[in-house]
């Protein structure tokens, strides 16, 4: 007869779970509140979401101090793994979410924000991402990934436009395929090693000296395919431009940041032990992915006529850029990736918010995309402030010193150089140069062309409200004064990454 299991509460280490539970509880609370009293103003939900995210932030701060004292924490039958990577990435996720959610408080009314479900799903999604980064169990990664993705599909569809449904269906279908890839890949690793925990898999594989290299490579191929989808690496990127175009600018900006950092963390956990075990093929494949993604996405961005699609391709290119860090796999590179993403968060937050403030309810006659370049032509004449701020974000994206992303690029390239990837560093520099061209194109439109249509003047900024102004202000300050924060940030992130062994 089996003895009943006895689990003491301390051994569960529920504290590791707290940061994820908080948004879940928040989401449930929002749903329940809505059940008993509907038609509450959306600003309350926004405030509630921010409140829960802030609590989440405090819980994370608690975890981080615990980490600094005791090192990596395990919890819930060793399924939860709270190490430096998990903490830093959760900070990025939560802070980015806090900055994005006020974008719901627009001056125009939008369909989706009147539903409390929007905010509930948003919080569920955050919890999903947090689960994804705070574990090395493939099951939990899968559950987190799908929780987040399913919520995200719904959030996109809630924008309630022709294009957003199309975007949601496309994203959903491709996401389902990627989920299939992921589960099949996990199955192969399970078959080869008998475990679904990444560190166990690593131990077993290293112990038997990668004797089943063929199977390992097949599994790697599947897992890589699924994460390449999430990270929008070419040729798995095809969803990105359409989904960005179809969803609201705020959502698109969010998508360019948070899901990707979660995917980067998992990719780091999974691919780096393979690379460090000396599998040159893994490295070679990733190398090709990085180079192709950076270059091809840049070339496509050049020929876009819509600013949002251009930013979509630019985000793909940036993802390729950051993926280089995963491939290099040194502590310096991983630190640089996280720093890059922090800076990218501010810049992209700003540039997508600038698109968001110029969102129209209805398109003008003769207009066939929401944010065409023409819309911004001669912006400097009607609102020089908006044009300058937009130009600031574009310059930062292009990597012009001393704005935020310059530092990210700088550290990433220098990490590549220190690890001996000189050619890669050159390719990265070259790509930054190409990228400069299409960012500049928007600046040229704003500053040097005459307005195409005077009706656009009214449109730009029509969606502006105090909270949007605040967010754009934060983004602008973050972008301009990044150089002050870079060094301390780097110290902090470097400490976290180093102490968790990456």
């Amino acid at each position: 007869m089996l003895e009943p299991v006895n689990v003491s509460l301390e051994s569960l280490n529920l504290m590791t779970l707290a940061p994820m539970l908080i948004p879940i509880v928040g989401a449930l609370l929002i749903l329940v509140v809505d059940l008993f009293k509907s038609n509450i103003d959306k600003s309350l939900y926004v405030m509630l979401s921010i409140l829960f995210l802030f609590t989440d932030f405090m819980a994370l701060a608690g975890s981080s101090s615990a980490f600094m004292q005791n090192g990596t924490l395990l919890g819930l039958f060793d399924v939860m793994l709270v190490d430096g990577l998990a903490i830093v990435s959760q900070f990025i996720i939560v802070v980015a979410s806090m900055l994005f959610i006020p974008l719901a408080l627009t001056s125009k009314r939008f369909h989706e924000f009147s539903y409390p479900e929007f905010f509930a799903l948003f919080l569920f999604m955050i919890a999903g991402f947090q689960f994804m980064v705070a574990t090395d169990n493939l099951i939990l990664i899968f559950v987190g990934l799908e929780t987040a993705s399913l919520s995200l599909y719904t959030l996109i569809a809630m924008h309630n436009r022709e294009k957003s449904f199309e975007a949601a269906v496309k994203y959903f279908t491709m996401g389902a395929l990627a989920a299939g890839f992921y589960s099949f890949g996990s199955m192969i690793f399970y078959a080869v090693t008998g475990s679904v925990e990444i560190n166990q898999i690593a131990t077993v594989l290293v112990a038997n000296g990668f004797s089943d290299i063929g199977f390992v490579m097949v599994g790697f191929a599947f897992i890589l395919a699924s994460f390449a989808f999430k990270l929008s690496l070419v040729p798995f990127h095809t969803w990105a431009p359409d989904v960005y175009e179809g969803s609201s600018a705020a959502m698109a900006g969010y998508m360019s940041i948070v899901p990707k950092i979660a995917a980067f963390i998992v990719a780091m956990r999974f691919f780096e032990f393979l690379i460090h075990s000396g599998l040159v093929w893994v490295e070679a494949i990733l190398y090709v992915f990085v180079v192709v993604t950076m270059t091809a996405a840049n070339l496509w961005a050049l020929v876009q006529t819509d600013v949002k699609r251009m930013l979509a391709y630019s985000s793909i290119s940036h993802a390729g850029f950051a993926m280089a860090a995963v491939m290099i796999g040194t502590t310096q590179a991983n630190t640089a990736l996280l720093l890059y993403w922090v800076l990218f968060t501010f810049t992209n937050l700003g540039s997508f918010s600038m698109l968001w403030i110029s969102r129209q309810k209805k398109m003008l006659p003769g207009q066939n995309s929401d944010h065409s370049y023409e819309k911004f032509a001669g912006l400097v004449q009607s609102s020089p402030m908006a044009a300058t701020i937009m130009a600031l974000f574009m310059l930062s994206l292009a990597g012009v010193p001393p704005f935020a992303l310059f530092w990210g690029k700088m550290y990433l390239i220098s990490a590549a150089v220190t690890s001996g990837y000189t050619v890669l560093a050159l390719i990265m520099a070259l790509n930054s140069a190409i990228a400069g061209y299409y960012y500049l194109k928007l600046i040229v439109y704003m500053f040097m062309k005459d307005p195409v249509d005077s009706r656009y003047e009214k449109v730009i900024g029509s969606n502006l409200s105090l909270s949007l102004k605040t967010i754009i202000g934060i983004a602008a300050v973050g972008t301009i004064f990044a150089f002050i924060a870079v060094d301390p940030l780097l110290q902090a992130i470097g400490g976290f990454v180093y102490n968790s062994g990456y």
Partner: protein
Amino acid sequence: MEHIITANPYFGVFVLFVLTFGAFTATTIIARLASRALAAKDTEKIKLSVYECGPEVTKQPNRLSPQFYLFALLFLLFDVEIVFMFPWAVDFKVLGWFGFTEMILFIILLAIGFVYAWKKGALEWHNIK
């Protein structure tokens, strides 16, 4: 003891069955492929419609109410959760109080979802929101 399959009196019938099945499948496929290859490809829109002349074809109204799908979805979602309860029920004694508490939490979560669906009117046939 040796089983010789061929010794079975019905073996002939089985072979015949298999052959017939194979031939049938093969003919179908070949016919399909041949017709696809040989047919004149005229994909004019009118030609593809049901009647080339006469009244315009009206789409069949969707015979199933959307409510039906909603019910199906809800059923699916709640039904699938059984897979988590079943193993728990099997090992109920071994899992003890800890398992019990966990399952109760799980069911509470489900219940919130259920109440939500209910309150939203998803369970009422004629009251679609």
